[in-house]
């Protein structure tokens, strides 16, 4: 589990257009620079936005990666809800205790 580096990767992708270009041209080359485990690597590469939420990525970071990957807002919210139903609660980070039920 390396939530810090997982979030750092997405934080840097969000704020560095050159890194974004490099990432989408060759994901493995960029990912090699971060200490991610197999589950994290798979979730980033797929991308599995819901699983990234379960792994503990802060939504303020995750929502931009989701948009970068073409998720519309309702799809982003639904991906997290689906993942909660499939995988259970968030495993680490700020949202460990969230009920995940939502209001809309």
């Amino acid at each position, binding site marked *: 589990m390396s939530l810090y580096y997982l979030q750092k990767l997405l934080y840097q992708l969000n*704020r560095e257009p050159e890194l974004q270009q490099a990432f989408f041209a060759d994901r493995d080359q960029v990912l090699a620079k971060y200490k991610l485990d197999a589950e994290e690597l798979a979730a980033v590469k797929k991308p599995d936005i819901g699983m990234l939420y379960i792994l503990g990525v802060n939504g303020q970071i*995750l929502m931009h990666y989701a948009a970068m990957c073409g998720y519309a807002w309702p799809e982003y919210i639904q991906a997290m809800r689906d993942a909660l139903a499939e995988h259970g609660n968030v495993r680490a980070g700020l949202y460990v205790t969230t009920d995940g039920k939502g209001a809309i």
Partner: protein
Amino acid sequence: MSLVFAGVCSHGPGITGRKAMADSDDVSSLYAAMDGMRQAIEASRPDALVVIAAEHFANFFMNNMPAYCIGMGEEYEGPIEDPAWLGIPRTQVPGAPDLSRRLIEHTLQEVDVAYAQEWKFDHGIMVPLHFLTPRYDLPIIPVNINCQGPPITPLHRAWAFGQALRRACDAVPERIALVGTGGISHWPATPDSGKINEAWDRDFLERWARNDRERLLEYTDEQTYFEAGQGGFEIRTFIAVSGATEGCSATVHYYRPIPIFAVGCTVGIVNLAGQS
């Protein structure tokens, strides 16, 4: 001079980015309230606008997270997000580095703050500016309180920071407007996005409008997280404004829970005329 204006407002990215998905009356009433705030700021003839924000991992990350930071740049760029996603074109925003430096020097007499000569504005500042300085012709001094990545500053320190910033404003000749921007209860960017605890919000705003220091500082983070979500940590921006305007009541001009904007949208203005 000192403060010529102080207020608070919301900054949720949905306010501009998901406008088309919202009820038209929600949009028009909120936009009108924000425009009223713009007019009040312009009527106060400020030389600069200090924005106390709670940025969302645009500039600051857990590798080196300041509890408080004040911008000292010549100019800033925003939004850092995809402009189409946020509904705000990317632009340059003028800074006021000399004024920033003096405010930082004075604030440091009481509170340890970081400073930054580079700062990319995210929705936390760009959404307010979109409404309050739509021509981007007023120098901006960004201020950040870490409300996102715990451990976060205690509420009483946010109040003390506001007091220190106020004394800094009192020590310079410029006319300064101050806006705090944050959510009240909200669960932004999570599966709970759209959940709003209206009763909690209205109780908080009543405390804020009375500048009730004791009741504003009595929340615990555990209580806030449970009742108001992680977005509730952003009450620090409102509390800093209260610290900066100690003794002044305020008026909440607009409050409406708007789930598609993921927050109880708020516009409040401090009654500075009554200050001692």
